[in-house]
């Protein structure tokens, strides 16, 4: 599984406001990238553009050299899975049927699940530790369990690229760690490319290979956590005095000053 995602000169204007301005980025297959930045910097807009929920005003996004505008919606959904920040849980839907919906890009109306679909669902439930909860109602799960169920849906989609918009919002610290460990494990075991927006820079430093910092719709900093997370960079990024503690062999740690 590999798919090279490239962003060239991407600009987005929403309601007359330039939200993203001339972004050019590439995402190496098999890497884990965290996108950070202050509220309103265009992080979610960027992710939504990557899966063609929004159309670029200028520039293009290409997958293995093919402009995603030339791909059928189903084909794109077979290559890139996306979990929005707040998906809606339909009343009464159970975990297994939710995860089966990850097979949507491989299915047609009136066509029952095939063996490959069932295998993908079983594997996704297994990979996310949701097998024992598969008959539970999604709207009655705890926050952490529910998020695992949604990630299971994206895993069942069997895409080389996984995009997550703030997958740890509303979760307490142990569950944030649990989710990010799981994402890291999916990356290690299947070689999935992961692109996610995270608010917690310490967790981003810990679980990502690369951090992209966005500010006012442009890339402020881009590199490994060690390169990006410095007192000077972050203070400039967030317009707040911050300090960074750097211990040898450890990811950097951000603290208020």
């Amino acid at each position: 599984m590999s798919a090279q995602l490239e962003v060239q000169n991407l600009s987005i204007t929403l309601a007359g406001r330039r939200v993203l301005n001339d972004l050019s980025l590439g995402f190496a297959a098999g890497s884990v990238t965290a996108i950070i930045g202050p509220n309103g910097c265009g992080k979610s807009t960027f992710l939504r553009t990557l899966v063609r929920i929004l159309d670029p005003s200028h520039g293009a996004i290409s997958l293995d050299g093919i402009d995603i505008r030339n791909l059928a919606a189903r084909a794109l959904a077979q290559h890139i899975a996306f979990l929005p920040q707040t998906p809606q849980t339909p009343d009464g839907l159970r975990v297994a049927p939710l995860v089966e919906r990850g097979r949507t890009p491989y299915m047609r109306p009136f066509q029952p699940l095939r063996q490959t679909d069932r295998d993908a669902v079983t594997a996704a439930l297994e990979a996310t530790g949701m097998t024992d909860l598969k008959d539970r109602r999604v709207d009655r799960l705890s926050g952490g369990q529910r998020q695992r169920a949604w990630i299971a849906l994206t895993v069942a989609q069997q895409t080389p690229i996984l995009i997550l918009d703030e997958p740890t919002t509303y979760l307490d610290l142990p569950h944030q760690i649990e989710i990010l460990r799981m994402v890291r494990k999916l990356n290690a075991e299947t070689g999935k490319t992961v692109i996610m927006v995270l608010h917690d820079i310490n967790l981003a430093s810990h679980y990502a290979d690369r951090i992209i910092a966005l500010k006012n719709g442009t890339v402020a900093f881009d590199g490994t956590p060690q390169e990006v997370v410095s007192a000077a960079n972050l203070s400039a990024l967030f317009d707040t005095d911050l300090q960074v503690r750097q211990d040898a062999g450890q990811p950097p740690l951000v603290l208020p000053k």
Partner: protein
Amino acid sequence: MTRITVLYVTLAGLLLGLAFALLVVGQGELHPFSVPLDRTILLHFRAPRVALALVTGAGLGMAGTAVQTLLRNPLASPDIIGFSAGAAAGAALVIVVSGTGVWAGAGAVLGGSVTAALVLALAWRGGIAPLPLVLIGVSLSLLLAAATDVLLSLAPDLQASEVTRFLSGSFAGAEWHRVGWMGAITIIGGVFLAWHTFAVDRLGMGDDMARALGLGPDGVRIRVVAVSAVMVSVSVAVAGPIPFVAFLSGPLARQLSKQSGTVLLLSGGIGAALALGAEALSGMLIFGAHLPAGVFTALIGGPAMLGILFLNTRQQ
């Protein structure tokens, strides 16, 4: 047996029982195989009423649950968001202008379809968001009801009574050609909606999730709303407005089956049962008069709407 099998068997039994009672027992027992007059009564009076109630109820039930699920809102059924009111206003306008009830059906179909198109157009903001669509539909519905009242009070007595007769939804005037129209629309529309439940159910996860799975929410909304509007308009054309059947069938089907999503077939069955039940009640003498079926669905529907609102607010 699973819960859903039990439900279908019970529903089938209920429908058959009601149909049999209405056809053969009804107001006076019939002997269609031995008495020729009884056969005529059965084929030309009782059978079309039962058949019309069945196909109308099924069509309303399916159209209702599809739109409710599509718009993620139990209040967003076609009879609440203006399609029935549009059809009724269209029929009333045609009756008053033409002076006869002959073209009322065409007026209903046109009125309902134009209303649906108007609701979609007014709700369009570079895409269709569910909540504005519902609010616009409810506003138009109230406006159209007022317009119908105005027409009614301006119309000469003869047309006014024709309009009043039309607006009291009923299966009493059933004829086989009406059954044919509604049956065809229910079957064609039902298959179309069944095809779309795949997308409609997935839209329940939000537009972004649906798009990420390769679906196009706006196209699905336009097609499903349009087809449901035609189904509801034709039902008004053949039987007048039968309130609350479209509104109640889906929530009842979901409650009873404990399933999520459109539950299309079961909603259609429950719609048919509601309509047939109302038809059975309308055959009974109440205070010395026969009340039209629409009165009974409204009598059940009002309290049921309150109940659903109550349950919904309690869950949140």
